[in-house]
């Protein structure tokens, strides 16, 4: 026991001595390198601080009664948030945000997977269509919104004309509160499905052909190969695409504001649109900032959940 103790003491002492000498050396080296490191990192740190400052300034604004025409701005704590959660319109906006983002991302994942499988085949048409299908991604979202607004006009739009050719009667699209959200999801799906398809296609290309070959040798049919081998292997790719799209869909503004402006009524008034209207049309900046902070919190929670899911799936796959 004693030996062990003295050993321990010796070890500890020698370790301390080693630490002390290496610390001295490190301090000397660091004091020489510090300035270079700081200088190299300074722009990045400044930009990061700038971004954070703006964000925290927004959070601070949400705690004030900042409004045009008010001679003085007062700190009002959480009053803006308290006022918001008491209104039905706020909860309607939360619901609209979640419904929009959830259904758009889900539909894009399904259609993206189908498209990616099609791209992975050797069919000539699929090869030709690969670059064409990516076109919606490069269009400015506001142009997409204006284009679809015209196409979805219930009286003169081409969408109803095409439906009429199939014997389907007039559809209200973005002009009716019952169909407006569905119409917006259609626009989002049309625009961003190629993004999912691209990422999923990359995942499919990454699967070793020998794995598929082994499955075939063991008598697995095409559907079983896809369901039990390909899908689990590309799941992390789908989920990472879903993370990006979820962040963007929860924040979506251009497509919604450019088509319905949150209407008819409040049927498509997602948080980002409501925040914009509150701040920049109604000139109630404090309350608008509170809505933006709520939207940010929802994005944060959604993203963290999706990233955890992605890590879990990746671990299982590996």
């Amino acid at each position, binding site marked *: 026991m004693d030996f062990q103790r003295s050993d321990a003491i010796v070890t500890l002492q020698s370790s301390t001595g080693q630490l002390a000498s290496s610390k001295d050396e490190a301090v000397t080296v660091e004091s020489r390198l510090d300035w270079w490191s700081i200088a190299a990192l300074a722009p990045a740190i400044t930009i990061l601080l700038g971004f954070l400052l703006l964000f925290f300034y927004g959070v601070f604004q949400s705690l004030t009664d900042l409004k*045009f*025409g*008010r*001679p003085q701005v007062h700190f009002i704590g959480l009053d803006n948030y308290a*006022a918001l959660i008491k*209104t039905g319109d706020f909860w309607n906006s939360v619901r609209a945000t979640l419904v929009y983002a959830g259904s758009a991302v889900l539909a894009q994942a399904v259609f993206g997977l189908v498209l990616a499988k099609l791209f992975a085949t050797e069919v000539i048409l699929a090869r030709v269509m690969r670059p064409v299908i990516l076109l919606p991604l490069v269009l400015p979202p506001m142009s997409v919104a204006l284009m679809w*607004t015209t196409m979805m*006009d*219930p*009286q*003169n739009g081409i969408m109803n004309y095409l439906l009429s050719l199939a014997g389907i009667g*007039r559809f*209200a699209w*973005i*002009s*009716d*509160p019952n169909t407006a959200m569905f119409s917006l999801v259609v626009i989002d799906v049309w625009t961003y499905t190629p993004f999912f398809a691209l990422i999923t296609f990359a995942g499919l290309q990454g699967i070793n052909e020998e794995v598929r070959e082994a499955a075939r040798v063991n008598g697995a049919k095409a559907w079983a190969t896809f369901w039990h081998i390909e899908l689990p292997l590309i799941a992390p790719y789908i989920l990472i695409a879903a993370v990006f799209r979820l962040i963007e869909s929860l924040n979506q503004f251009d497509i919604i504001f450019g*088509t*319905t*402006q*949150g*209407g*008819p*009524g*409040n049927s498509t008034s997602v948080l980002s649109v409501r925040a914009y*209207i509150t701040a*920049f*049309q*109604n*000139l*109630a900046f404090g309350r608008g900032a509170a809505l933006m902070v709520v939207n940010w919190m929802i994005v944060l929670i959604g993203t963290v959940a999706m990233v955890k899911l992605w890590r879990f799936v990746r671990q299982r796959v590996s």
Partner: protein
Amino acid sequence: MVYGPKSLSEGIMPRKVAASRGHSASFTRRVLICSALLTGTAAALNQAKADDVNWRQFEGTSIVWAYDIHPYADAVAAQLPEFEKLTGIKVTPELYPDDAYWNKLTIQLSTKSPSWDVVGTGIQPAWDLAPGQLLEPLDRYLSDPKLTAVGYDYKDFFPALRDALTWKVKEGQIEPGSGQVWAVPHGFENIQLFYRKDILDKYGLKVPTTPPEMSAACEKLKAADPAITPLGVRGVRFWSSIHTAAISIAKSYGVHDFIVKDGKLDTGLDSPESMAFHTDYVDMIKKCAAPSFANDNWYQVVDGINSGRTAMAIDSNMFGFWNDVAGKPASGKIAFAPPLHAPNKDFESNIWIWSLAINAASRKKGAAWLFIQWATSKQVELNGAVAGKLVNSPRASTWSDKAWLEYAAKPEFSNFVDTFKTVQDRAQLAFTARVGFAEAMNAWAVAMQKMVNGADVKATLADLASEIRSSM
């Protein structure tokens, strides 16, 4: 190109002759407009020479003039080379679609961006902008003989329009009637019902005068021709859809956006009069308006009446006039009437004043003022009017000018001048002057959409009133 049904003489006339006649009429019209513009320009230059203002005092400056995409802007833009020649100031117009313009205006001004020097505004948006010191008061420019020409004659603007743009800001609220001048009128509009004579004649319909009459007429029209939208009205969830048809008709029902109750300002939108108005109005919209009502702005209203897809419209009167201009597909087919009114009551008509103001953050205010002064001068207003663009000039001198009166009395404009005079006698600003206009009226536009989509009128108005009260 031949539009619409041909007249008998056109049917008999050989195509070449008809074409050459049309061409020659168009040529004559162009010559007349060009002559008027040249005469006007010469007069403006002479006037400039006679003025004691040095028009070249800001020579070499460049300014940005922001405005809505609008024929009023086109009228000024067409004459810009003359301004640049007169002053040596370069003007860059930045024109945006209606909704985008108002949003961008708020952002540009509220962020104190100096990039826009002159902005187009109306009285109502200016109520929200002035107290934040985002607009430059114009009194000192108007009273400075080095900056304002004697011949500018500010008192030539209709007194009601001048008064509407003059107010005090006291404790963050508007006190109309006296105070500072915040903008100069550049064109104005009163709200009217305009209609396609050809469509109403074809189906033997009389011009409706009340919302219930309009609803009945729409049902008949829809039964006769389902492809035609009986009535074009704005429906977007933005205050601009309230300030035309809705507020004008509401006023005739006795509705007030705000009232003074027990010495305090309160909203009048949940009053019994408001209930009666909304019941009739919502019923009328359901029976008459396009299915795209919730997305329709004035662009859709004008397009509908111009193309003949819409039979009637309630909006600013010049939308009818512009489409009556010779050469337009609907020329001579659009006639005018006062806006609808409550049964057994007289009509009311709201006014909108397109005005030019200086961004308080502009670094070129002197040059900006010279531009405003020129753009709202007698000659530029008259030139714009006889070009068929700046229809409702805010200057009394335009309305007594023979060139304009003769032009506006042409047969293709039907009863434009007479209806204008009738409506203008009763037309007035229908909103209460106060900061917070946009917030309250945007909420009203959203409530209107909800009611048109089937929400209970009484409950929606109660919610609307409570929302407005909570923001006061």
